[in-house]
């Protein structure tokens, strides 16, 4: 009887292909992994399966038209894509924003941050625990709460994820009557639920053993790779654009920047959990202090060429749930843009993957990849 042999390059090492369709690849991400037993020797990541040419599209569309397209970039936190673009255009065209609109922007951004971190939390545990196990339980608990946020968004803007809320000079939708109550009820409920999440996994030695001292990313390396957001803060750098360069009305709110020095999977996870708590704080302050007044300083958009830009170059960045989400615009004084560069955070966060995975085990791949929280609409643009 002839016995077939699984082909490999050598006797010891095996090239395993993870992705683009893999349960833990968070989208379409392919890694070629050379394993020796369970230990990973080499990683070749492949991205670009979701490349849509958004930057090129930005050169063809006018800024007004480009806003809803940007929503689709980081589809888990659409507001944080519109936000820097609106800031940049407002800077170029000298538009000021009424205070009520700023508050609404912050509320939307922070709600989006919670919902995005809930997706992270759910999928991260799903990767760690499997679809047929405790992971899926936590996943569904996280999505149960996220659903409430999406319901609030749906009542507010009509859309659940791609809000198209922010426009130049303000926001497009005013809050509906009863928004305060909905939000406060949600926050009250959510505070208890966060405790439940923490109890669910943080006392569990299995979880701690799998996340502590795994995928260690030192501070210096993280900065060289341009990692930002929770990945950088998980490595012990207290850098948050909301504090470092307060845009919008963030300087009016009191909140902390959580950061952990270890740089492992656990600290990246913990930073996000604490960030959700900080977001609750910000939301509480914002909903109390929301002023009345107009939501837009410009007349509503009529034609696509309604914004005339000065000639110039602008870079504006906001702290999205995944890190520094920046927009670099070159305008030549026409109605369109000459060049748009989207500094999407996960592209840079993901580029450390070859560094982090070397020497890890196969089971760590999912934990490490999950802790970077990539969104492939954001990576590939």
């Amino acid at each position, binding site marked *: 009887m002839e016995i077939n042999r699984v082909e490999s390059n050598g006797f010891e090492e095996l090239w395993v292909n993870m992705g683009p369709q893999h349960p833990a690849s968070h989208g379409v991400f392919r890694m070629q992994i050379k394993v020796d037993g369970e230990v990973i020797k080499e990683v070749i990541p492949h991205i670009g399966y979701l490349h849509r040419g958004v930057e090129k599209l930005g050169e063809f569309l006018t800024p007004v038209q480009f806003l809803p397209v940007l929503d689709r970039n980081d589809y888990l936190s659409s507001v944080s894509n519109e936000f820097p673009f609106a800031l940049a255009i407002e800077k170029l065209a000298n538009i000021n924003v009424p205070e009520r609109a700023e508050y609404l922007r912050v509320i939307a951004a922070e709600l989006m941050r919670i919902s995005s971190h809930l997706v992270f939390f759910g999928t991260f545990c799903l990767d760690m625990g499997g679809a047929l196990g405790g992971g899926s339980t936590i996943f569904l608990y996280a999505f149960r709460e996220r*659903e409430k946020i999406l319901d609030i968004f749906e009542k507010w803007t*009509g859309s659940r994820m791609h809000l198209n809320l922010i426009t130049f000079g303000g926001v497009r939708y005013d809050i509906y009557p009863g928004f305060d109550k909905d939000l406060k009820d949600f926050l009250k409920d959510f505070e208890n639920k966060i405790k439940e999440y923490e109890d*669910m996994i943080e006392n569990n030695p299995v979880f701690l053993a799998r996340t502590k001292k795994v995928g260690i990313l030192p501070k210096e390396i993280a900065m060289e790779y341009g990692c930002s957001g929770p990945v950088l803060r998980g490595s012990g750098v207290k850098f948050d654009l909301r504090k470092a360069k307060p845009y919008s009305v963030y300087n009016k709110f009191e909140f902390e920047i959580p950061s952990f020095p270890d740089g492992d999977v656990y600290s990246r996870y913990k930073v996000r959990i604490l960030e959700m708590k900080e977001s609750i704080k910000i939301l509480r302050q914002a909903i109390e202090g929301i002023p009345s007044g107009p939501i837009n300083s410009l007349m509503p958009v009529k034609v696509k060429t309604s914004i005339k830009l000065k000639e110039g170059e602008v870079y504006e960045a906001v702290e999205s749930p995944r890190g520094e989400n920046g927009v670099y615009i070159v305008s030549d004084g026409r109605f369109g843009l000459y060049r748009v560069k989207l500094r999407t955070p996960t592209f840079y966060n993901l580029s450390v993957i070859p560094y982090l995975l070397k020497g890890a085990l196969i089971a760590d791949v999912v934990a490490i990849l999950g802790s970077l929280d990539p969104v492939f609409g954001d990576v590939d643009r």
Partner: protein
Amino acid sequence: MVKALYITLKNLFRKPVTVMYPDKKREIPNRMRSPLFALTKDEDGVIKCIACKLCENICPSNVIKVIPSKEKNEKGRPYPEEYELNLSACLACEYCVQVCPNDAIVMIRIFGWATKNKEDLILRKEKLLENYEKYKDLISECTGEFLRKMQTPRR
């Protein structure tokens, strides 16, 4: 370690949050943006659209095509000879609704509208008018008038 077991046990006796969809339906909010459109008619049953092409101008994905008529209708307004909206690339950004000066194009609050035929995704004028008759009660709160009023800075 035991806490996790306790929490799952606690959840075992909580009420499930699932809405069993075809049996029970979720309440659809007033402002819902679902990518299905209608062209409205005024009280005399005449199409409100005046074929001003503003929606065609602003659409980010160029899915709207309007061909204005040469002559005017009985109300003395121009009207669209043809109106075509291709849903297959629609972003549901609600710009077309927002710019419409006559509240002619509106979104319909409908969940789970689907079709097996790709041709059905191209909404022509007849189909859009038919949608208006069919879903009269489901028209979104956000009409052009409403949106512009909401956004206009009060001076």
